């Protein structure tokens, strides 16, 4: 995908909001791309982790919240271990999810899970998914 970079003064409202929720400053990202290179879920994300950080730095909160990136993140913490800027990217992802979930908008519907799946998965899968993807 192509990333839209607006001219003029960067809007840092979304960066501040993320810092408020998660304590992390996404503005420190230097766009090296290490996170995207190591992310195990990146091929299923649109845009990539690095691109998401860029959207945030440019105040593109709407695009960042709608992007599949934070919703495909598995909170595996691989990017955290590798980011040369020491950014806790999993916390940034959590903050993005929370900005949506706190509007009472669930991203997984428990009733939509097929009965066979419910019977097969370990409780840990349900608890974890509801923790991350429901309000």
């Amino acid at each position, binding site marked *: 995908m192509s990333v839209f970079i607006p001219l003029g003064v960067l809007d840092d409202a979304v960066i501040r909001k993320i810092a408020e929720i998660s304590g992390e400053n996404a503005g420190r990202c230097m766009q090296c791309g290490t996170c995207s290179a190591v992310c195990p879920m990146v091929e299923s994300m649109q845009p990539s982790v690095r691109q998401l950080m860029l959207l945030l730095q440019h105040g593109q909160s709407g695009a960042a919240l709608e992007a599949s990136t934070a919703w495909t993140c598995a909170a595996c913490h691989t990017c955290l271990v590798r980011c040369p800027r020491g950014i806790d990217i999993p916390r940034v992802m959590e903050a993005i999810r929370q900005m949506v979930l706190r509007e009472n908008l669930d991203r997984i519907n428990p009733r939509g899970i097929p009965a066979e799946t419910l019977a097969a998965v*370990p409780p840990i899968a349900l608890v974890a998914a509801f923790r991350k993807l429901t309000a």
Partner: protein
Amino acid sequence: MKISYYPGCTLKSKARNFEDSALASLAALGFEVTELERWNCCGALFSLTTDDLLHQLAPVRVLIRAQQAGAGKVTTLCSQCYNTLARANRLMREDEEKRNTLNQFMTEEPDYHGQVEVVHFLQLLRDEIGWERIRAALKRPLTGLKVAPFYGCMLLRPKEVGIDSPVKPSILMDFIAALGATPTDFAAAEECCGAYQVLAAPEAGLKRTRRVVEAARASGVDALVLSCPLCEYNIGKQQQELAAPGGALPVFYFSQLLAVALGAAEESCRFDLNAAGARELLEERGLIAAAARK
């Protein structure tokens, strides 16, 4: 020092094979842990928000239960429980403001300051029991079995709670070697299994399953060992969705191979709860009796 054992919900249901084999192994090694009399689900994942403490209550309550039981340490088998409890414990130790808020909220509980230490079961094996003692207690060394570790995420990351190096761990390799098996590294040992995305983004999850299984096959391993019921589901059971040629790659909880090597009663391994191929592999290698099969 008394060590409490926190099972977590999955170990009491879908992962009985994990719990039973681990407890049977400890009995064989003559090492004692005491299950907490009361416990609640830890919440499975540590909350990554800093402006909301609600999700810290569950893991902190578990830690308080261990403190009330007079334990110096609390141990877990599930990697996610370990990670969640260990991170909540660090929060209670290091963040005075949040600690006070949480203690004040839970007036029905005694104050907690992080006195109990959270250790994963593998740390008990390595640090309290030791590989040598395990080696000396082997009844059926797993000679010739090529086993690869699948660490997944929660044992290693973030590094403040990792039980080993987040980028170059060796604890499971050392464990496999202690059982007399052949430890075999592979390219995806520290990668994620896809975690809870198996429910929300199943196609993305299956790509993880495929990647891990193919990397393990490329290294010519006989089996994987792991430490998390969600990893076991995603890497073990989900293989049936792949229809991969060459049959299933067997996946075990590390404690199952430990129990076999220590000669613990086979019922404790509950191989009936494993994904396809696990029990068959051990029978084929003569490590468990084929006759016991129903």
